[in-house]
């Protein structure tokens, strides 16, 4: 009846399946992207990732720019993969002005799930690198307020982002509007990727992740937001290490090596802490993050708190004195 492809991918374990996906992507690199039935004109390949490819497209009907993420399906013997169904279902329930909107979903025959998102001009990474970081203090404050609004919304629904970093913060430049993107780490993709070592992936990771704790919660996103906050002010990542161990050491140099007093439970979490890491005294955030007003520095220190149980929540952060002069009317008009 049907031309059933041999299910050779199904015989791999999840790790090898991921490698197989990469090989399939490589093989596809020269091929035209499959946007069958999506009513899109593909303009360019924007990104190649381990989960598939990202294309800049034109919506044929509206003329609007959109972003299409193409996820390669594996394990077809079980139908549409469960992680993809769960992930898309999650995205479908996120409705917030500061979260990028999933416009529609399409399935191509036996191969891809195409996710079509609204398109925004820039991401914060490019904004910082190419245009000089937002020197305007009000822009930093506005961006921070919007990021925290989106994070607070997600956390109220018990959704963690898990991969907050400047390149996942999209910007509508003309409106100074922020939208969070790339919730791909939700659910069962999350833990695998959270603990991989890739250049640049550890710079925004919370210390409880870096020391290999599997017990984490919403606080990990607040650490990431704190790193983004600092980066907007100083124009570069706060701690730029090449692996998790060195990243953790950089954090300890900055904030002081934790003790049972500063981080209750740390000796259970890291029994060999003082064997592997020198006992640093805190240099203090103020020595690195200059040009930030005192209330901003106070908020930053509450986000970059080593002890996750004492780190500020997104909801509480929105009420911090730093935001007291945010022009709420202008925010609402965005």
């Amino acid at each position: 009846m049907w031309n059933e492809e041999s299910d050779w991918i199904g015989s791999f374990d999840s790790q090898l399946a991921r490698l197989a996906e990469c090989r399939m992507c490589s093989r596809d690199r020269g091929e035209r992207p499959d946007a069958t039935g999506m009513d899109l004109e593909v303009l360019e390949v924007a990104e190649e990732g381990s989960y598939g490819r990202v294309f800049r497209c034109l919506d044929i009907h509206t003329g609007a720019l959109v972003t299409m993420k193409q996820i390669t399906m594996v394990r077809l013997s079980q139908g549409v993969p469960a992680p993809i169904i769960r992930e898309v279902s999650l995205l479908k329930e996120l409705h917030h002005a500061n979260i990028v909107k999933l416009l529609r979903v399409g399935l191509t025959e036996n191969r891809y799930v195409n996710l079509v998102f609204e398109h925004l001009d820039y991401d914060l990474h490019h904004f910082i690198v190419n245009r000089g970081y937002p020197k305007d203090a009000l822009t930093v404050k506005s961006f921070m307020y919007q990021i925290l609004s989106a994070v607070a919304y997600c956390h109220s629904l018990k959704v963690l982002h898990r991969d907050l970093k400047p390149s996942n913060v999209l910007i509508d430049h003309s409106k100074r509007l922020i939208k969070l993107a790339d919730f791909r780490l939700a659910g069962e993709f999350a833990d695998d990727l959270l603990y991989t070592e890739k250049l640049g992936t550890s710079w925004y990771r919370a210390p409880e992740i870096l020391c290999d704790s599997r017990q984490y919660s919403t606080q990990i996103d607040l650490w990431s937001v704190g790193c983004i906050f600092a980066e907007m002010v100083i124009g570069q990542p706060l701690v730029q290490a090449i692996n998790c161990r060195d990243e953790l050491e950089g954090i300890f140099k900055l904030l002081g090596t934790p003790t049972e007093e500063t981080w209750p439970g740390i000796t259970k979490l890291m029994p060999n802490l003082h064997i592997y890491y020198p006992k640093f005294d805190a240099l203090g955030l103020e020595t690195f993050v200059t040009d930030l007003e005192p209330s901003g520095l106070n908020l930053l220190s509450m986000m970059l708190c080593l002890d996750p149980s004492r780190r500020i929540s997104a909801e509480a952060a929105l009420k911090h004195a730093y935001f007291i002069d945010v022009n709420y009317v202008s925010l609402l008009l965005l």
Partner: protein
Amino acid sequence: MDFDLENPLGNFHDLPCDAVPSLFLIESDHIPPPNYCQSFKASDFDISVRRDVVSLISQLSCTFDPVLPYLAINYLDRFLAHQGILQPKPWANKLLAISCFSLAAKMLKTEYSATDVQVLMNHGDGGAIFEAQTIQRMEGIVLGALQWRMRSITPFSFIPFFVNLFRLKDPALRQVLKDGASEIILKSQREIKVLEFKPSTVAASALLYASHELFPFQYPCFLRAISDCSYINKETVVQCYNVIHDITREEYESVLNINSTSDTPVNVLDEHFLSLESEKTNGTNVVTQEQDFKRRKTTDYGNNRTVPFSHFHQC
């Protein structure tokens, strides 16, 4: 059940308070549209076909958590509402049943054997074996019709919220009440009539029904707590309660093979709603449980039309 998007339909937990408005605001997106019931009422054939597919799903799910068939049947109803009525072909109904079951199992992270599913579906009639790609195509069609919104807020999502309103201190009693309400919700889904009501209304009505059976003396307090909830329409809860009552009684009578009598029991919910209204009109402020019990005794005493006490248990 918890409104935890990353673990939809996971274990019972208390809801975070700030998530409640979200639940009530968007629950209508996860049920068939209002005209779905009317379209079924127009045709006995359609009702029997739905019942057959529901039966197929129940067969597939008989060894799994009861929430799985609930979710699968929710997908079925939302699909039918979107795609129109079923074809009168047994194989198409089976394919749809398998696909809804499969999607629900994936959302719930439930492992199942595709081979066992095929065997169950073909038990006794030597029907077609579906290729994996056929099932995948059907899954894709269902996903598209439901716009990939597989999260499906169900009555189970609201039970913890309402139980918290009841202020039962004993965790064991809370669990008994939750289990009773869950059983009622699962039973009532089989009937098309319940689909007219929002999940929150079904949850409230099922809890009231269960509390009336399990905790008759505390029932008036529970009723007041539900009535005072600003997210709930009281009149709709009355209607839904009556539907649940009819369904439960039908099942009870069919088990005992008792002929229905012309003597309809007094509708307890109506009486208590009237009683509450009367209290409000009289300017009564706070009624303690003891006072309430005393009042009922007084009412029973000397009122010839009052139902005898034993009737509260619907025996």
